[in-house]
């Protein structure tokens, strides 16, 4: 009689423990999804700001047509990208073209002083920072999910209910990782 009660008690305890871990894993997985959608929001904002930027720059930088066209092409690629890998590559490429645009605009002091341009520059800077922070948040949440899914004894529960590891948002292009050389 007593043995039955004890066994029942243990079974109940195990069930509650599994429920607790399951809920924790669900929370982590949803955090990861939330983090990913945050990145999407910031990327879309950058896509929306770029046409305005190019229009403002066009008036001053008539001879830099190639740089401006590169930016527009890269933006279109980024908007069209569908799966995650393509998205990552396209966004990194877009960041590169924007960097060269701002580097070239250093030669045009009138452009730099233009009120509209200064506003856009501030907007783009803050959007780039937000993209960086949302990637950071996403990666940190992915880290916590991966650690939880692989640690013992949580991995037993994860295996039972098919919680998978998530991928980090990484730099795909090897050229991005190279330290830029400065030549005078």
């Amino acid at each position: 009689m007593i043995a039955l009660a004890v066994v029942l008690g243990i079974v109940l305890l195990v069930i509650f423990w599994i429920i607790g871990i399951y809920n924790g894993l669900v929370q982590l997985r949803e955090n990861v999804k939330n983090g990913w959608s945050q990145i999407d929001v910031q990327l879309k904002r950058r896509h929306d700001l770029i046409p305005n930027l190019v229009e403002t720059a066009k008036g001053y930088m008539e001879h830099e047509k190639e740089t401006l066209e590169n930016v527009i092409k890269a933006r279109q690629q980024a908007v069209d990208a569908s799966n995650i890998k393509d998205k990552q590559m396209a966004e990194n490429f877009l960041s590169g073209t924007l960097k060269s645009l701002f580097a070239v605009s250093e030669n045009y002091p009138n452009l730099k002083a233009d009120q509209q341009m200064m506003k856009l520059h501030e907007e783009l800077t803050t959007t780039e920072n937000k993209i960086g922070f949302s990637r950071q948040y996403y990666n940190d949440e992915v880290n916590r999910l991966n650690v939880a899914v692989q640690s013992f004894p949580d991995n037993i529960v994860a295996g039972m209910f098919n919680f998978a590891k998530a991928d980090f948002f990484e730099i795909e292009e090897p050229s991005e990782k190279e330290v830029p050389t400065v030549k005078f």
Partner: protein
Amino acid sequence: MPYSFTQIEKEKSNTIYIVLCLLVVVYFVFSLLAYLLVKNFLNFYVMTEFLRNSQRPLAFEFINFIEFMCILMFATIIGCFHWLSSVDNLVPRLKQMLFAKDLDPKDSYHQKFQNILDEVSVAIGGKKIEGLVIPTMAMNAFALQDFEGRAAIGVTEGLLARLSRAQIEAVVGHEAAHIVMEDCLSTTVISSIMQIFGDPAKDVNALTDGLSYRSGGFRVRGRGGGYVILFWYLFCFLRWIMRSISNLLRLFISRQREYRADAVAVRLTRDPVSLAEALHKISSRWRGANLNAQNFEAIFIVNPLYRSIDESTSIASDLLATHPPVNARLSVLLDMAHMDMDTLVQSLKKSPDKARRIVQDVSLVSSSKWLIFNQNVWHGPYNVDQVVSLDWIRPDTLIKKLGDEKLSQAFKVPEVRHIFNKENTSSGNGLSCPICAVMLNKTDYEGVEIFKCNVCKGVLLGTDEVEKILIREDFGFSERIHNIADKIKKENNEGWVEKKEDKQLNRENGLQCPKCKHQKERMRRTFYRGFRVELDQCKWCGLLWFDKDELEILQCVFEKGSFV
């Protein structure tokens, strides 16, 4: 470290509920003592006065169970009432007490601060944070949080003007760390409770001081003397209790919070150097915060009241100080960055002192001239400012640069295009120059919106905007302005002001204010804040009119004299 916002939500801190219990206990003890005092006094008085013949012994009576329960209930009710009135509507109330204001969307520095707040809120997972600004030249930052879920981070104008973007971001990250770790909530609540104890303590102080003066060394006669002495002792007791409560509450604010917040801030921004630079700048100059209340120190990043207890490391200071020593914080941060203190100080010294810079005089540089075609005639040549102030120019008006043969429509020329922006149309604001009668052009100077006349270069703005411009140091000044500023400072040292000759313009009657156009009172010449630069101010709406260069001169004089 669990710094994620969603994780911390679950681990709510219990400190605040301990504070509530403490409050009830304190009220209970106080009521008990007061009750005992009154009861035994009455016994004594009644016995001696009216029952002289009675043989009843005079004993000190304690309380029975019913009285105990009554006092407990009374204390609980008062304690809960005090608690509820402290925590109700916390953020708006404290915002008022700190003299903090909302952000101005037309000010580019405030916009930058709002952007930084949005960035940090993305970094902590999306929690919305409001922004506040204290209009003072000092440098400090604070965070507020309340039970309704509102969170706010505030900075001073001086901090926005003097720190770089990365440094402001590090400071905001630190304050956001307090919000995420929820110790901001307990600190805010405790500060609010202390505020209620703090002010009555001041009043009680005043009362007891007054009493002791009046009774002149307690030489009093007869029965009356006894009462005065008794009340005096009662008030002193009250004062002692209130002070002790305030100090006791300070125990709940640990200085370790600041170390943790620094660490979480670095984890959020990945930039320990900027936070170290910001802390060094804040703590070495002007760390005040325009406050006279002692009870809000804990919410600030660096203690606005310089207290020596903060800089020591004994057990007593560990209990009672609200902030750790600044050097200890800096050494922790510099360790993370593998840097030492000397390198930090050197790098801060290297940043150029903008006000001392001498730049080229823009007004002397010839800018390009333009010709404008209207009604079959070419008008001009005008420079850009004059083109912008022409009323009759339309987007399709033909315009060409002097010396160039290329014709373009006005809206295609980038230097002029901005005037067709709806916000920038001069006719929109209805303000005209008091000297030249052309429309004033709304433009941006050091992040602040000002109204400028393109013909005589005069400027119209309010005193709030002037304060902001004085604090901010975006531009250097030309040599001509520096010379005038030096002359003014020299004259200042030499003695009283003699009336300056009025300029060629007829100013004897004063200028008419562009905004209120008050018929009776014209704008009168005045000195601004004691600086010897004569300006015109409208007595009715407070707007100031600066003639050409006067704003730059005022800035230069101010910045030469400041200790920055």
